């Protein structure tokens, strides 16, 4: 039954470009989809593993920049007399580089997170993202700094002579983003419902107990961060080859905040949470803009919303809805008070 529901939902989502005539709305959906991928990846780290990582935008931006640079080709002096020249590579290869390098930086952060805990870790991750932003801004020779990387090529996939997909127009990008989002969702779901996922949750809930039954803390922190970072890098690469301009603003802290809001309000540690949160906070700006509300007011609303969610729905929207639904179901059946099944059954 649940399978059919998912397939129907997926078919519906896939059909959108076929009947949606407003290209601007399609654009909004694509950007929202990219953010949802980033939010899902953050959820793995923040929600499931319980790591207060506030530098997530760094992985997104690294994916975007690396993918762009490799697809454009670049020359840079690593030392005054050492010129490194890289020819432009096919976009799919560039995207892979973006994902891998984002994953590697995730590995570094993961290693650090074991030594540096709690609030200090928050600060390290924020600082890391800021450093990367400043590097992107100031290493003009490589990144063009604030002048941005332009004319980034779009993805081309195919077998020469047989067929070729050129992901230039919006519908094609929509399907690409949808495909990547589905893949990421499936990967995360498989991870969560496995021994690795249980280990991550164990670390979040009770680390000393987790180690006492054999969970290797460093190993799982690193794994979680790496996968999370690689997915965020994928989102960044998708972004770069869709909007085809990338500048250091892609590293702004405000985007990390957006992802955090999506994950927390949707429900951290649930599979559906980042999707619900992503849809709400991806589409909300557009609805507010349509109502002619200034962006500053919109952000004030976001800030207040986040506070309200933390106060009244501390677990997020998805768990709250689930609990309400279960409350209704058991009331209808007339069952006597029975402790609710835990969120572990996701």
């Amino acid at each position, binding site marked *: 039954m649940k399978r059919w529901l998912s397939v129907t939902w997926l078919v519906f989502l896939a059909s959108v470009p076929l009947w949606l005539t407003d290209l601007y709305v399609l654009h909004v959906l694509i950007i929202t989809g990219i953010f949802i991928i980033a939010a899902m990846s953050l959820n793995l780290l*923040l929600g499931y593993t319980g790591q*207060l990582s506030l530098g997530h935008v760094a992985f997104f931006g690294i994916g975007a920049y690396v993918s762009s640079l490799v697809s454009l080709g670049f020359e840079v002096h690593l030392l005054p007399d050492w010129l490194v020249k890289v020819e432009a590579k096919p976009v799919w290869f560039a995207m892979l580089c973006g994902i891998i390098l984002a994953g590697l930086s995730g590995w570094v952060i993961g290693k*650090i997170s074991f*030594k*540096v*805990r*709690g*609030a*200090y*870790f*928050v*600060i*390290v991750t*924020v*600082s*890391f993202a*800021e*450093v990367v932003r*400043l*590097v992107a*801004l*100031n290493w003009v020779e490589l990144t063009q700094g604030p002048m941005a990387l332009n004319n980034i090529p779009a993805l081309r996939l195919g077998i020469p002579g047989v067929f070729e997909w050129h992901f230039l127009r919006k519908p094609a990008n929509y399907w690409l983003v949808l495909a990547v989002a589905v893949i990421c969702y499936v990967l995360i779901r498989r991870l969560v419902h496995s021994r690795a996922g249980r280990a991550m949750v164990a670390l979040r809930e009770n680390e000393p107990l987790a180690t006492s039954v054999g969970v290797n803390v460093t190993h799982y922190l690193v794994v979680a961060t790496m996968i999370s970072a690689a997915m965020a890098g994928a989102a960044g690469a998708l972004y770069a080859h869709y909007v085809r301009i990338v500048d250091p603003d892609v590293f702004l*802290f405000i985007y990390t*905040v957006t992802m*955090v809001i999506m994950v*927390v309000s949707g429900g951290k540690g649930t599979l559906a949470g980042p999707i619900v949160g992503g849809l709400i906070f991806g589409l909300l700006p557009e609805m507010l803009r349509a109502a002619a509300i*200034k962006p*500053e*007011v919109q*952000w*004030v609303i*976001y*800030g*207040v*919303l*986040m*506070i309200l969610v*933390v*106060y009244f729905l*501390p677990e997020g929207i998805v768990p709250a809805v689930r609990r309400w639904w279960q409350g209704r179901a058991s009331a209808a059946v007339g069952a006597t008070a029975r402790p609710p099944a835990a969120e572990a059954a996701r």
Partner: protein
Amino acid sequence: MDQLLQHGLNALILGGTYALLGIGLTLIFGIMRVVNFTHGELYSFGAYMMFMWVMFAGVNFFLALILAVVLGMMLGATLEFLLLRRLRGADIDTTMLVMIGAWIALQNMEQLTWSGVAKSIDTPFPSAPLVLGPVSVSWNRLFVFVVALGLIAASYALINRTRLGKAMRATFQDRETAALMGVEINFIHTATFALGSGLAAAAGALLGPVFVVYPTMGDLASLKAFAIVILGGLGSIPGATIGGFILAFMEELGAGYVSSGFRDGMGFLVIIVILLIKPTGLFAQKERIG
């Protein structure tokens, strides 16, 4: 050599205000364990208060300074009372998220009220700098330095020489015992947050006239304040003071001799390197991590 002296002097003056930022945050982060993302907003609030009172209301510069600090303390107290009191026992990510929400709301309210255009504030100081041999310093900056030192000394005295300070330190070391000894915990929390916010507002009020005032000025200030607190160790006022000066020196020397575009990045690199070597900060005191 002259260049070095000038950088050194600039760093000294900058360090004073950085120390204020750091002390304010170490009180909040150290005592209350709140990852206070609104600290930078109090900083810009202080600056905007100066702008409003001096440029709009025509109030005397020095009076406006006092007003800015007092209003900053009141804003801090309000934030604590409204937002944090209910979250007293909650875990650190919950309070952090609430602080992020408050930060976004505050910053955008500032943007709405005063627009994003940078503002400058008139000062009563002569514009010609004071020349001391090979180095020169503007009167404004000198004033900033003197006031900052005064506030640092006052903070130190408050924490170490007064009953209020003793109560704060007791709450920091062991909340339950302090409560049992009759310390009014709620009041201490509000007072501490107000004090820390007041210091941030003071830093902003002092530096606002030196530079310009714009809505996002608090962001870097926030991050630097965290850097300073980590350098100096959670809850340590001497540590935050020293940390503030160290950061200022690194920025000035880095900007002068390495790359001026990257000067703000110095602080963050410092944080990362230090935490890698000593995960609890340089002058670690009674740390309880996370």
